[in-house]
């Protein structure tokens, strides 16, 4: 059973630039990808490491907050930091991102405030941040539906004339994130149809984390997931999702294609969800420790740390600062999440429509009146 999860093409070659032990991988096949990371300095790598560490800390704190009853639910991203940070770091600021609901690492890179990221999970907001501020859309909970939104957005970018301008500050692309399970949904497949036919500048970034809640990838597909794109005429690639440099490189390639007018790309990042599906889930019911151990040894953060050390890019003072930064993040989350209040009751009716709607207006007025009246009635009600 420990191997079942990785049945679908675990023997398929994937783009890898850094081995689990932190050594650079140099093959004839990955030469073009090596070129794409050649310009990254030690500082760039440390920045990615920082993003990954802060994302992991965010995850741990959020999980703890949920345990303490401060969040209704939380979906852990642990293990997927390389896929998220690597792809996220390849984006230009003007590129637009459609996450699913587990892309905390992407949000970290894009600069979405950590407290805002938890409003949804606290049950205080259905979204939580302003998408325009960071060109990062809200989380989408209905599996796969954002694939179409991303494709449509990319069709808008085409109409804005922001593809193939040759200006790296203007050319714009879209990245949509979804999981292995999501590939079974009609919407993801229709997204590929529309993207292919329109040659839309969108990257389909599938994190194959081996599980869709309790179902292994073998319940969704019988060939490696990255093959899916090819059937639609969308160039496709499988990448080691625990190798942040490889994820950066394949995303950079896909974005270059999109920016220059080459159209969509399908990326499968082969990774692992190290935690539970959400805090409501109990993975011991469906997967075994051997499998978890196997992947623990491939922890993406450890791998990048090893690379930094191997290349003398590790700096103890910097590491200590990062520790302190993570500490401060944790402290801030513990404090500020608790302080998030509840919206006023009337917020229930706000922004259902942009313009007045008679029924909403009446019901809002009715509830306000009712609440006012029953406020005074409290004692009477208790008597009942």
């Amino acid at each position: 059973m420990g191997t079942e999860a990785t049945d679908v093409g675990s023997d398929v070659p994937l783009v890898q630039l850094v081995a689990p032990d932190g050594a650079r991988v140099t093959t004839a096949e990955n030469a073009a990808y090596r070129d794409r990371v050649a310009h990254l300095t030690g500082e760039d790598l440390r920045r990615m490491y920082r993003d990954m560490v802060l994302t992991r800390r965010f995850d741990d704190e959020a999980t703890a907050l949920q345990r303490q009853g401060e969040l209704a639910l939380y979906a852990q991203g642990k293990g997927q930091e390389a896929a998220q940070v690597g792809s996220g770091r390849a984006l230009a600021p003007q590129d637009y991102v459609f996450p699913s609901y587990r892309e905390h690492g992407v949000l970290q890179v894009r600069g979405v405030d950590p407290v805002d990221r938890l409003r949804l999970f606290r049950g205080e907001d259905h979204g939580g941040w302003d998408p325009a501020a960071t060109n990062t859309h809200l989380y989408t909970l209905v599996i796969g539906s954002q694939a179409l939104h991303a494709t449509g957005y990319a069709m808008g970018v085409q109409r804005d004339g922001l593809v193939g301008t040759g200006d790296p500050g203007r050319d714009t692309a879209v990245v949509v994130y979804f999981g292995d399970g999501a590939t079974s949904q009609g919407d993801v497949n229709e997204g590929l149809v529309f993207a292919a036919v329109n040659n839309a500048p969108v990257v389909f970034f599938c994190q194959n984390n081996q599980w869709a809640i309790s179902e292994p990838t073998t319940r969704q597909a019988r060939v490696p997931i990255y093959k899916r794109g090819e059937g639609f005429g969308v160039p496709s690639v499988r990448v080691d999702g625990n190798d942040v440099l490889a994820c950066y490189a394949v995303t950079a390639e896909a974005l270059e294609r999109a920016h220059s007018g080459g159209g969509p790309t399908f990326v499968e990042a082969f990774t692992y969800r190290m935690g539970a599906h959400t805090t409501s889930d109990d993975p011991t019911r469906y997967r075994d420790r051997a499998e978890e151990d196997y992947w623990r040894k491939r922890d993406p953060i450890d791998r990048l740390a090893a690379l930094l050390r191997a290349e003398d890019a590790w700096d103890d003072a910097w590491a200590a600062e990062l520790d302190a930064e993570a500490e401060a993040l944790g402290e801030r989350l513990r404090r500020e999440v608790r302080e998030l209040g509840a919206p006023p009751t009337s917020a229930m009716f706000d922004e259902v429509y942009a313009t007045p709607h008679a029924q909403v207006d009446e019901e809002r007025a009715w509830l306000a009146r009712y609440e006012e009246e029953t406020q005074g009635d409290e004692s009477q009600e208790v008597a009942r």
Partner: protein
Amino acid sequence: MTAQKLTFARAITEGLRASLESDERVLLMGEDIGRLGGVFRVTDGLQKDFGEDRVVDTPLAESGIVGTAIGLALRGYRSVCEIQFDGFVFPAFDQITTQLAKMRYRSRGRLEMPVVIRIPYGGGIGAVEHHSESPEALFAHTAGLRVVSPSTPQDAYDMIRAAVASPDPVIYLEPKGRYWSKDDVDLDAAPAEGVLDRARVARPGSDVTLVAYGPTVATALKAADALAAEGTSAEVVDLRAVSPIDFPTVVDSVRRTGRCVVVHEAPVFHGVGGEVAARVTEECFYALEAPVLRVGGFHAPYPVAKLEHDYLPSVERVLDAVDRSLSF
């Protein structure tokens, strides 16, 4: 006023044309709407005039059409999606219900969804399965959507322009059985106010109120003619919208007439008439001389063409209901 006699379908064409002209971020999307001009020719000529990037022949996938329209809206475009027939909107139901309707709310108003979904709906044209249905109740129950249906060429023109201009998503239901009916349309009028949420008294009267929308307004008006000949004065209220519903106009009428019959093509069971009846009864309890009666489709799938005239609410069945109301 420079009125022209136009068919209902052509009035929509002209409304779309006016929208495309006045805002270059307006797009039309759908199956066969380009070179063919749509199976009902409502978009005839528009691709030629506005190009393939603005009048877009999409892949054959309704969820894809609405889902990409949502994405386009996020990028600032205003898409008008054509669904080829009523029965083919359901593959898009998820995108409409869980995404289009809720995106603004989910974002606390930061994101706007100016998307129009045009659906030729209703029966009476002798069509095969899935081509004659009236799904309005399935949209009206979902908050975040506006659900409208014009009954005259002028309203068709005014309402499509208002729908395209609306910052809210609008389900725009076109009574396909009326497409070929003609009437005067003033194409130069300023954009009409309130046509997406104000009912219209299509004919004043004093003995009974007939509430209708879309295709059944004509039925109600014919019934009112027949009733007038018998000495009964029927007021006909054209709701125009089933979300929101302009209850003040209906209630005002029923308070005066004391009787109310609601007419729609959709099945009565769990249909829009239930909402109208419930609410009118709440507001007019002491004014009502009879319960609000409903005339509409039966709780059966839309039948074969050979039987549709027995299924649809006819003038006779409206008169029968009025008789029952009067003799209550």
